[in-house]
């Protein structure tokens, strides 16, 4: 199945992209996808412990099971206001 990854802020700048589509095994959890991305991108590995995750308009934890065509956002610590 395919999942769209969304990047913002520091991660978007570091990776030079706001989104990408990755192929993952059916039943993959958020942590599986993040582990895959951490092997590809040093910055994801470096930031991993500070990241939170969202699918669509809901925050999820890293054990959340993904579905085909989900949009998974990797969120760095926020600084609005």
């Amino acid at each position, binding site marked *: 199945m395919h999942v769209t990854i969304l990047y913002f802020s520091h991660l978007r700048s570091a990776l030079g992209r706001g989104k990408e589509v990755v192929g993952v095994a059916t039943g993959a959890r958020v942590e599986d996808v993040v582990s895959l991305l951490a092997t590809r991108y040093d910055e994801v590995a470096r930031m991993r412990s500070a990241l939170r995750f969202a699918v669509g308009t*809901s925050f999820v934890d890293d054990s959340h099971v993904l579905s085909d065509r989900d949009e998974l956002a990797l969120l760095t610590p*926020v*600084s*609005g*206001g």
Partner: protein
Amino acid sequence: MIDQMHTAAAFDVRIGMDIPPADAAMAFLAKGGSGGNVLFAGTTRRFTRGEETVVLSYEAHVPLAKAECARLLEEAAIRWPILRALIWHRIGEVPVSEVSVLIGVASAHRQPAFNACNWLIDTLKHRVPIWKRETFRSGSSSWHEGSW
């Protein structure tokens, strides 16, 4: 004696390149027959730790930010007797002295409005997926460290 209508609170959330001015926010708050309306305006500060800022650039996960702001307003309405409330946040470039965020709360009395407004801006800063990049007079620029 009834000093508050038992109707659902009215909320308004906007995240965008432009937000309406503060007088529009006050007009929104004033529609509910409240006795105390509090409006917080966050603006781009010129000096931070001795360094001069020229502009802040905000970006957001807009659908998630809107949903999270709506959740904050619902949570605030459980904690305080809110009649009307709003969160309006700009994204894109916000030069020094311009407004980046407006948070308004209307209540029957001033103290719940102050308390809810204070909680909303504090909580927004740690929960809503919005980020700012600071550009300084020196020419350097960096993403704000941020926090959860």
